[in-house]
């Protein structure tokens, strides 16, 4: 949007493990100040991509520039320019708050002249003033999370990677956390978020959905919800929901059906056509529809529809050999889980 050089540029990035292509020709760009969400099923290649961007794993081919540095040529310098915060926060629970900050400042080589200012900044940002001497292990999850964020950005990295940063945290702390992230982004920091939580994804400016090593969709949360679903989404309230689900799974015109409490979500080609059809279909099977209407898909609906679409196509194109891809995905996930 602005003229600044992109913070992250990825071109035709590939990573193979043996025969398995974990990351298959990914290209993307993230601007300074952008909050970039990276979504995908387990084993889709998210962690592999992030590990390459962090300079922890060498790409098989293609190029990735992070803060203008080539991750394959200058992994050390890349690591000095990024902050990384994992789901588990990687803080030392048996150290005091202030000791954790000093430890991470040392690790990231924060210059002595800036040390005090940076630590004070982190304490203020995390709202931990007066709590510097507490043992980190005694802090509630929300505080720990903000401390972990403070530790990860002590060295003022222009790019920050967050891995499911708010999983399990209470909603109020979560909102405060995102407020901090948006402020960092306003100051020009690029934030990469990987997550399974669709409500975390809503906080991102741009989302990239990856499946089986490829990008299958990208856009803002709103764009994805409005444009990327193949078809419309219907909400159906009826009696005998379980039976209705079973019947509708193979029904003509219904691509997908999922159950939500006493209601169903159906993916159909066009709502106008499908509404009378579904009503008739269910009535013929003795199921009474009490409500049926078109609704806006949630990010989860989009995610599921795009990844399963991709799955079916994959099967069709490449036969059942590719289907066994899952097998390999499982193994690689295991490998990906090694601490970055």
């Amino acid at each position, binding site marked *: 949007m602005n003229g600044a050089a992109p913070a992250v540029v990825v071109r035709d990035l590939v990573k193979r493990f043996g025969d398995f292509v974990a990351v298959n020709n990914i290209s993307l760009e993230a601007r300074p100040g952008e909050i970039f969400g990276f979504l995908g099923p387990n084993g889709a290649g998210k962690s592999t991509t992030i590990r390459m961007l962090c300079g922890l794993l060498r790409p098989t081919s293609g190029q990735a520039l992070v803060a203008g540095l080539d991750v394959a040529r200058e992994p050390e310098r890349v690591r000095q320019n990024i902050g990384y915060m994992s789901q588990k926060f990687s803080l030392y629970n048996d150290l005091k708050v202030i000791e954790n900050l000093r430890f991470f400042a040392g690790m990231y080589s924060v210059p002595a002249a800036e040390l005090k200012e940076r630590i004070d900044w982190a304490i203020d940002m995390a709202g931990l003033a007066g709590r510097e001497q507490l043992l980190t292990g005694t802090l509630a999850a929300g505080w720990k999370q903000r401390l972990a964020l403070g530790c990860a950005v002590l060295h003022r990295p222009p790019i920050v990677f967050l891995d499911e940063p708010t999983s399990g945290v209470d*909603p109020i702390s979560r909102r405060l956390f995102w407020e901090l992230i948006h402020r960092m982004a306003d100051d020009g920091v690029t934030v990469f978020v990987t997550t399974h939580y669709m409500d975390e994804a809503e906080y991102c400016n741009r989302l990239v959905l990856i499946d089986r090593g490829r990008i299958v969709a990208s856009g803002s949360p709103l764009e994805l919800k409005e444009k990327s679903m193949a078809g419309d989404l219907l909400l159906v309230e009826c009696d005998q929901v379980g039976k209705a689900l079973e019947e509708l799974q193979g029904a003509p015109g219904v691509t997908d059906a999922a159950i939500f409490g006493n209601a169903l979500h159906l993916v159909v080609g066009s709502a106008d056509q499908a509404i009378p059809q579904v009503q008739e279909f269910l009535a013929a099977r003795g199921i009474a529809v009490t409500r049926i209407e078109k609704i806006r898909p949630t990010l989860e609906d989009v995610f599921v529809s795009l990844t399963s679409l991709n799955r079916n196509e994959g099967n069709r194109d490449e036969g059942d050999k590719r289907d066994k891809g899952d097998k390999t995905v499982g193994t690689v996930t295991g490998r990906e889980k090694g601490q970055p």
Partner: protein
Amino acid sequence: MSDSGNAIELNGLTKSFPGVRAVDGLTFAVRRGEIFGLVGPDGAGKTTTMRMLAGVLAPDQGSATVAGFDLTRDAEPAKHHISYMPQRFGLYEELTVDENIRFYADLFGVPRREREERSAELLKAAGMAEFRSRLAGKLSGGMKQKLGLVCALIHTPEVILLDEPTNGVDPVSRRDFWRILYTLLDQGVTILTTTAYLDEAERCHRVALLHEGRMLFCDTPANLKASLPGAVLSIVCADPRPVRDLLAGIEGISSAMIVGDGLHLVVRDPQRMIPELRNRIAAAGLSCDAIEQVAPSIEDLFVEAVQGGHGQDRQDARDDHGGQGHTEDREHQGGGR
């Protein structure tokens, strides 16, 4: 009480650990044939509650019945009617999928024929039929969770207790998971599940929202969302911060939060507010692409309840966040209408 059509009843259930009251006077009932969700963040008391209901942890006070058995007196016989899947289900990584299932079937005394039928059915529903001879250690995270579920369900219990079954599982596998749960309902079971994903609450018939050991609400997801005082407006704009700064503090807006596409506001009167917001944004020389009412989430309700209801929490949230500006400076108590 035990034959009331409730599969699970909790009455003032309480459990403390040194320094924390993990579960504080919890009272609710789960009807037979229901999928009931215990929803809340880490530390809300979900796991402690589940462990008490599974008969593996004794309450300090209060009582609970599961499948008609009083857990304070008859915890052992109750266990034959309960299937409990803890957060870390004990799969044997060096055994195959089939061998794990066989192991649990033997443990629960499931006859061979029934085991074969049931495991075939469950594996198919889980989308795992082709992976029967795969080592459990070689499965992806989502598949491990699903195998845990298959093992826990290999016998036919009356009550199924699932502790965060979908934690770390991607949305596609999560759907498989829920599909399995709903098929089980047809067989007359009752399911109590916990989740820290507030959006997952939508998939349950009824939910109890937990916060710090206490229950905030208990109702159907639709009723819960309808009970949010006010409505949620979405403002789509490219540069949300100045818009937020402009709007925060206006009477009738109780919270304003920046999201990826713009802002989410909780407002008292959406119909009156939408034109007013347009005017104010235009008058300040700012712009927005759209303002529309969106469905509130369970999270919106949770935040309103915790911040509005309990002075203490609210104070914390604020302390917590001294330098933050006015976002959390909610409610204009003086104002009213």
